[in-house]
């Protein structure tokens, strides 16, 4: 009964989404206050019924209702409660429901917090969000209904993919989706602006906090995914340039470009049409990511649901949403003129470089992700683009980006860089380079060019961020949330760069075959396989090793890597044993049983790897702080288009 209520709630949510879109857009066109109000009420109703459907599905999982096909496919009776709840979004149908719920949530938030916008604009934004909701709800109801019954009911379920039975991966999709879907808000603002042919840049100010919030969630989501891959896949890598990873990274790059170009559009009224295009692009890439992951167009280890019929639907939807927005852009954007001069060392030009470099990186990654598809479509054979390509094309734009970032942060709008700042920045740059050479040579006994550049850039970005912070605290300008957020995010980027440089330059990996009692040494640490034992979990059996790690005869830690066989079958899963440290991680993963009591073990020494994720969290934190800047909450001011021209010193 409960699943039928869920199904019915989903149908009602679709009907409400249709009225949300109709009353929003038609109400704005006819300037009919009643219709526009009806559109707003429909948003709330749509959210309530989508949430009800989601609750019904979760309930079916908690109650182990194996008469529901989706529940029987994605859980079983031995699965612990936490993972049964997480299994709600562990498969295709449930992830779509989560997508729809997330979109409905953002729509309610936008509706609630946009009372200061002029009514027709607000109604159009709501209407466009409604159109997107229709697409997703229709997709679910026609091709991927999570409430389909299984007759006769299964005695027990199939189990959740064991790879997904993990804390980080259980919370990863909701956060990632909040990011993906959040870009829909910026998209809706951009489309409403184009529809109205607005000439002012006030929409940039309204869009900024929403974009920052979505970008923050996406950052956390990507970091969680990377952390998960590190300890769960058993290879010790933290990024694989897998198509599914790229699918989340490309909207992030577009979103990063967008939050920077929004700043220019808001403060100086420049780059208007470019910013609109970026807003459309960021959400388009989110949809494209969904399409790539769900359709089976590209093969990937992560794509756990593939079905061509669904692919056709998503492609049609994609074409309607993105194609429609781009045609709208081609029609309206030429009318947007922005004429204002700025100097070559002004903040505007640095943000222009930022955008050019980020979009270059984005374009090259998109090309690499889709290249196999192009080749296949042109009958040139199926090929695969490996990490060497992605690493190269990502590094080339990133190095100048980091170098310019330190200066750009300190540049003033319109004018050039102040003489006094120039001297201080030179000092920071010199100190970073010197420190990079000393640290690179002393700590690791090597002076490789790329390592030195990486270290120097990391220190430079962190140093320049701290300099900005110190000057702000000393000066009379104060420290608004937007600036504090920027400083923290940039510092985090420097920290992440430090981590990437450290781990890529100085990591040591060794695959060894050890019997109980044998030892192997890497980076001065001795790893001794002390014991092997059988373990039993709630829904798996496995073996666990005791790996005693010591340095110069002193015990450091005991790693306990596991190899698990889940009762539901499938490949054995590795659970790496990791000792976390500020300077390095020590990593041991259990490989195959080689017979005669010998096991293959993968031992790794990963210097500074923690800083990659710590940096990413700081980046997200910075985004969050900037999104909460008081400036965005001053409602009365928000609707004054005149503030575009005010030269704001607060950044």
């Amino acid at each position, binding site marked *: 009964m409960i699943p039928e209520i869920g199904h019915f709630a989903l149908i009602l949510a679709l009907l409400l989404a249709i009225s949300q879109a109709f009353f929003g857009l038609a109400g704005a066109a006819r300037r009919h206050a009643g219709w526009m109000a009806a559109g707003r009420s429909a948003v709330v109703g749509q959210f309530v019924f989508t949430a009800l459907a989601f609750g019904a599905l979760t309930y079916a999982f908690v109650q182990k209702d194996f008469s529901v096909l989706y529940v029987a496919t994605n859980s079983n009776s031995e699965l612990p409660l936490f993972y049964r709840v997480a299994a709600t979004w562990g498969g295709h149908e449930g992830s779509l429901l989560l997508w729809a719920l997330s979109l409905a949530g953002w729509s309610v938030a936008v509706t609630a917090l946009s009372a200061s916008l002029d009514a027709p604009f607000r109604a159009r934004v709501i209407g466009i969000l409604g159109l997107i909701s229709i697409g997703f709800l229709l997709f679910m109801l026609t091709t991927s209904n999570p409430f389909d019954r299984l007759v006769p009911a299964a005695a027990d379920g199939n189990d959740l993919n064991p790879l997904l039975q993990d804390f980080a991966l259980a919370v990863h999709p909701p956060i990632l989706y909040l990011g993906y879907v959040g870009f829909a808000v910026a998209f809706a603002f951009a489309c409403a602006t184009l529809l109205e042919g607005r000439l002012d840049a006030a929409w940039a100010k309204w869009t900024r906090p929403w974009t920052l919030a979505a970008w923050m969630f996406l950052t956390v989501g990507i970091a969680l995914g990377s952390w998960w891959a590190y300890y769960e*896949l058993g*290879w010790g890598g933290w990024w694989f340039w897998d198509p599914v990873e790229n699918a989340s990274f490309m909207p992030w790059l577009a979103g990063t470009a967008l939050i920077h170009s929004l700043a220019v559009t808001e403060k100086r009224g420049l780059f208007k*049409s470019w910013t609109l*295009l970026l807003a*459309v*692009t960021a959400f*388009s890439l989110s949809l494209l990511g969904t*399409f790539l992951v769900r*359709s*089976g*167009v*590209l*093969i990937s*280890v992560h794509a756990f649901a*593939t079905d*061509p019929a669904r*692919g*056709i639907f998503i*492609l049609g939807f*994609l*074409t309607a949403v*993105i*194609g429609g927005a*781009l*045609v709208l*852009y*081609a*029609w309206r*954007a*030429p*009318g947007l003129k922005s004429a204002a001069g700025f100097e070559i060392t002004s903040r505007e030009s640095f943000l222009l470089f930022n955008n050019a470099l980020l979009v270059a990186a984005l374009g090259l990654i998109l090309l690499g992700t*889709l290249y*196999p*598809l*192009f080749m*296949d*479509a042109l009958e*040139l*054979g*199926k*090929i*695969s683009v*490996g*990490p*060497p*390509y992605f690493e190269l094309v990502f590094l080339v734009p990133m190095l100048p980006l980091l170098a310019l970032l330190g200066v750009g942060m300190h540049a003033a709008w319109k004018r050039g860089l102040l003489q006094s700042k120039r001297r201080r920045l030179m000092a920071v740059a010199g100190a970073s380079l010197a420190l990079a050479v000393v640290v690179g040579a002393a700590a690791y006994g090597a002076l490789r060019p790329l390592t030195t550049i990486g270290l120097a850039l990391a220190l430079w970005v962190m140093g320049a961020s701290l300099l900005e912070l110190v000057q702000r605290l000393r000066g009379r300008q104060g420290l608004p949330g937007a600036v504090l957020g920027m400083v923290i995010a940039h510092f985090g980027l420097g920290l992440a760069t430090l981590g990437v440089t450290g781990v890529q330059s100085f990591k040591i990996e*060794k*695959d*060894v075959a050890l019997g109980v009692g044998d030892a192997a040494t890497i980076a001065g640490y001795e790893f001794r396989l002390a014991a092997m034992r059988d373990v039993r979990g709630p829904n798996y059996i496995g073996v666990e090793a005791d790996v005693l790690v010591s340095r110069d005869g002193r015990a450091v830690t005991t790693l306990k890597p596991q190899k698990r066989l889940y009762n539901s079958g499938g490949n054995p899963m590795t659970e790496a044993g990791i000792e976390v440290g500020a300077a390095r991680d020590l990593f041991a993963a259990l490989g*195959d049983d080689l017979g005669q009591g010998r096991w293959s073990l993968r031992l790794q020494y990963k210097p500074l790897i923690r800083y990659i994720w710590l940096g990413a969290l700081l980046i997200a934190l910075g985004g969050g702080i900037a999104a909460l800047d008081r400036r965005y909450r001053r409602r009365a001011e928000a609707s004054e288009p005149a503030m575009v021209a005010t030269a704001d010193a607060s950044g």
Partner: protein
Amino acid sequence: MKLPLRFLLPAVAFAALVGFFIVGLQKDPGEIRSPLIGKPAPAFSLESLGDPAWRVGSADFAGRPWLLNVWATWCGGCREEHQTLLAIARENRLPMMGLNWRDDRNLALRWLEQLGNPYVAVAYDPEGRTAIDWGVYGAPETFLIGADGRVLQKQIGPITPEIWQRDFVPHLQAAGGEG
């Protein structure tokens, strides 16, 4: 108002992309398309992984059946199948050549040192040209080439002892490739 064309570019680029997706969706990614089977194996001659001065190629084993295994250190499936490859090499039925694909020479050599070397020779293909000739779309892939130089069998993805027994060994027995 005249429509400036540059604003139309994003829409046009997107339309082209949709075209590719439509073609891409017609193709079943799970289907093993192996137009090479039954056809002569593409010829190649590449640097040896271990010694750049030495060349290895498809002519090295002419007149007898041989295996070509495409691998790279960045490929997880290759690590998975490595023990099977070592076991096949120990059977000593036919020579196995490695094609090291889009990889770093030092990393690849270290891999062989650490995990063991099942290959009689390894061709080094950092740019992936030869792999394209062979229609490789992902590592690992394994080809069985008969004594007449024709491709007899192709495995996409990691090879396991079961796949080896089921798909490859019958060809060897039929072709009288024992010893």
